[in-house]
């Protein structure tokens, strides 16, 4: 189980997160939605302490790390329980696909090379990239790179995978393959926290939706409740805008066709 308690974060004197509380149960998929600049990325980065919160604590299983007192060692333990998928993939450029996946297995989890290779191959199988095992990241399409990013995270068998807009750097025609992979691993019961702008995907894959605005959780609940019966004005407005943009996109498309 993952629990965030009163997570606050300021950059300088600008508050970006104003006290976030969130509980994610094992095997749950939680999607975080919200307008640009609402603090979604920052929240995700606070969970693995890529960004140290100004206030609050992060609890994963048996370990609790507090914003101020959290030592390097505790942070390292916390990070070993998490993995992250980045918007810009951030694959290790000097390593092949399989080496990217093996790296954490060997260096962090101290597996032997053979074990790591075997595990990595299994995970690459899941994301459908076994035949690219020896390619370098630059030789892959964005969609393929992101699938490697997912494989690298998945291989570590973490308590939770944090995904920050995994498809928003992709060309539209490559979004599908990545979403499909995420959906597949969601069905395997991997705990995930996903920041995304893909509303219909979030509706489809999530057990729980969190809507953020201006550093706060405005509304949270099951997809049915949040998408069909949002209570808060800000949530309603957000979905209205999203729908309008989607509509505009569609009408543009149809006028092109």
């Amino acid at each position, binding site marked *: 189980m993952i629990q965030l308690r009163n997570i606050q974060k300021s950059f300088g004197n600008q508050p970006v997160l104003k006290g976030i509380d969130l509980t994610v149960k094992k095997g749950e998929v939680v999607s975080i939605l919200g307008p640009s600049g609402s603090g979604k990325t920052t929240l995700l980065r606070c969970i693995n302490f890529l960004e140290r919160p100004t206030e609050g604590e992060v609890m994963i299983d048996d370990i609790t790390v507090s914003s101020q007192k959290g030592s390097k060692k505790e942070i390292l333990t916390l990070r070993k329980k998490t*993995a992250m998928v980045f918007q810009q993939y951030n694959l290790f450029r000097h390593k092949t696909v399989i080496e990217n996946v093996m790296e954490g297995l060997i260096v962090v989890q101290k597996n032997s090379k053979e074990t790591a290779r075997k595990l990595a191959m299994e995970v690459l199988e899941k994301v459908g990239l076994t035949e690219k095992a020896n390619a370098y990241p630059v030789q892959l399409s964005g969609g393929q790179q992101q699938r490697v990013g997912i494989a690298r995270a998945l291989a570590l068998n973490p308590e939770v995978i944090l995904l920050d807009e995994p498809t928003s750097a992709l060309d539209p025609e490559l979004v599908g393959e990545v979403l499909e992979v995420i959906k597949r691993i969601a069905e395997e019961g991997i705990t995930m926290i996903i920041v995304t702008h893909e509303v219909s995907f979030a509706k489809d894959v999530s057990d729980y939706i969190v809507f953020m605005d201006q550093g706060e959780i405005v509304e949270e609940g099951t997809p049915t409740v949040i998408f069909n019966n949002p209570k808060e004005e800000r949530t309603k407005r957000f979905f209205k805008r999203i729908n309008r943009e989607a509509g505009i996109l569609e009408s543009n498309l149809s006028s092109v066709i």
Partner: protein
Amino acid sequence: MDITLIFDFFPKLISYLHITLLILVAAVAIGLVIGVVIALIRIYKVPVLNRLAFIYISFMRGTPILIQLFLIYFGLPALLTLVHIDASRANPLLFVAITYGLSCGASFAEIIRGAINGVEKGQAEAAYSIGMNEKQMMVRVILPQALVIAFPNFANSVIGSLKDTSLAFTIGVMDMVGRGNTLIATSLHALEIYLTLSMIYYGVVICLEKGFSLSEKKLQRFEGSLSAEK
């Protein structure tokens, strides 16, 4: 001038090429160690050491290598006598290696520092996100990429050092130039000898450049420059 003399001098001089290369290899090896250490000191802004590193780099940059050579040649034994070590009979090659090593170290440090800063920030974050500690991140993710980024500047610097070694004779090292000078004294054919020397240096530099550009391509295969599959 007698151009055919070049054929005479060529074998005599090139038989001392290994001394030149030895100096270069020693200097680059010492320089790499110093360079990485100093670059890390500067990146992590280690108190006191960072200040010293800055002074060291700026001093090496701001003084001619010939003067540095003499400073080490006369200064090091003087320092060592303070701790009762007699270095006055030490092989001058040693002083040359130290001087050029220090000089390479200063330029490598700046090249490596720039290259480390040039590695994408996301690479470190990815390393941390899979649970690496700072050292693993640096050694396994950042440095390998930084060395590739640094390589072209590094190659230039090495070629510069090779040419600088031609000053080693001034403290009595018998390298190609040292040998050339003794030949000049006995044969009085200075121009032919310098012509021969220039040909040898030029040849070596061309070979180095070729070698570097091949290794660069190999190193950067992951940058896509050689990717046939793309």
